[in-house]
Structures are given as structure tokens and as C-alpha cells.
């Protein structure tokens, strides 16, 4: 049976705000975009709101345009600009 939810992952200070590494979410509407997901999440985690414009989104481990529609089964990661190296 195919999954009807997405797997959301949080990294760095995003994870500290959400308090969880990740969670599963059934898409509230079909074709929800990453940007709309983020708006949804800022309601759940108000601490994200002030810094939401600096978040990056990766869909299935590829950095993606926030306007990309999400599909059931996607792995969606939210994280700040990278600072490794």
C-alpha cells in the first residue's frame, strides 16, 4: 500500500525550535507546496515564524524550489543555510 503521508525532517536550529528530529504528516490538501507546508508548520511551531524566510527546503534530498508541489511519500527537509566545511 503506498504511503499517503510525507516525512518531514528538521535540522540545526529548526530542530531545536520544533523539538523533534522529524515527523510524519498526511498532506492536508493535494498538491500542497513546500511554501504552504512551511506556513502550516509556523502555526504549529510559532518560533519558526520570525526566521521562516531564511529556511531552505529539500525534497527527497535535493534542494528544491519552495513552490514545488509535494507528493505523498516525499521526504521533506527544512533547514537553515548550510555552514559546514
Amino acid at each position, binding site marked *: 500500500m503506498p504511503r499517503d503521508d510525507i516525512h518531514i525532517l528538521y*535540522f540545526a536550529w529548526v530542530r531545536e525550535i520544533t523539538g523533534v528530529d522529524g515527523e510524519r504528516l498526511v498532506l492536508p490538501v493535494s498538491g500542497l507546496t513546500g511554501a504552504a507546508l512551511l506556513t502550516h508548520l509556523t502555526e504549529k511551531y510559532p518560533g519558526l515564524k520570525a526566521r521562516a524566510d531564511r529556511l531552505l527546503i529539500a525534497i527527497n534530498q535535493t534542494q528544491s524550489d519552495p513552490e514545488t508541489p509535494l507528493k505523498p511519500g516525499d521526504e521533506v527537509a527544512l533547514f537553515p543555510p*548550510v555552514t*559546514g*566545511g
Partner: protein
Amino acid sequence: MFEVRVQQADFDINAELASLSRDNPAIGAIVTFTGKVRSSDKDRPLIAMTLEHYPGMAESQMAALIEEARQRWPLEAARIIHRTGRLTPEAQIVFVATCSAHRHAAFEAAEFLMDWLKTKAPFWKKEEYEGAEAQWVEARDADDLATARWDA
């Protein structure tokens, strides 16, 4: 001989170089970059930094960087190693090595890999300074500019 690794353990440069270049007499030039934890930044003594990554995506991005470098320069071998976890001053953080017949390709590819790694691979640093709460490092515009120069 193209490899990427994310690991908590330290790395040994001689061992990495031996496994990269052994039995390949086409290699005339090897460039390495090693990034280390500095003890002071902005006048305050740094106690430690903690590196976090996105498992899976970090490795695939690092492999994609090496593929991109191979499109641009004739490389015989290359490797990127990035450590994660809590690291104290003088610890090694990151290692890039490039092997080519000639030096300019090896130098340019190594610098390219570091510039892109800093802006495209999902790693994040949190710094602990003496007498202050640990803070996530902010991305630097200078790193974006360093990456952008390879777009020309």
C-alpha cells in the same frame, strides 16, 4: 578512486593519500585541504564546535560535487571527508584531496570542492564560546561569493 565520507572519527592524511594515489603513476600533482577548529574567533576563546549533517543528502551532495569537479578538470582521484559531532580546537574537521597529472587542475579542483562544499552540502556548525550560550553559525555571504566565482 573517488570517494566521500561523513564520519565522527578523525582521519589520517597519510593513509588517505596512500589509498588515493598508490599504484597510479599518472598522478603528478596532489593537493590537499585540511580544515581545523580554530580556538578563537571574534576575540572570544572557542571551547568547541558541534557539526550536524543531513545523513544521505550530505553524502549524495558531496558525491555530486566530485562529479561536477570531474566534468571540469582531468582528475585521477579525489576524496572529501567531513567529520561530525563535537570537536575541540585544533581538531581536524574536513579534508579534500585531488590528484591530477598537473598542478593547476589539482589546485583548482580542490579549491572548487571546498567552496562548493561550504555552500551546498547540508552541514551545520554550532559554536560554544567561553561564557556564552552555544550558537548556530550564520552562513557567510563571502562563502556564497566564493561559490559564485565558479559559475563564470
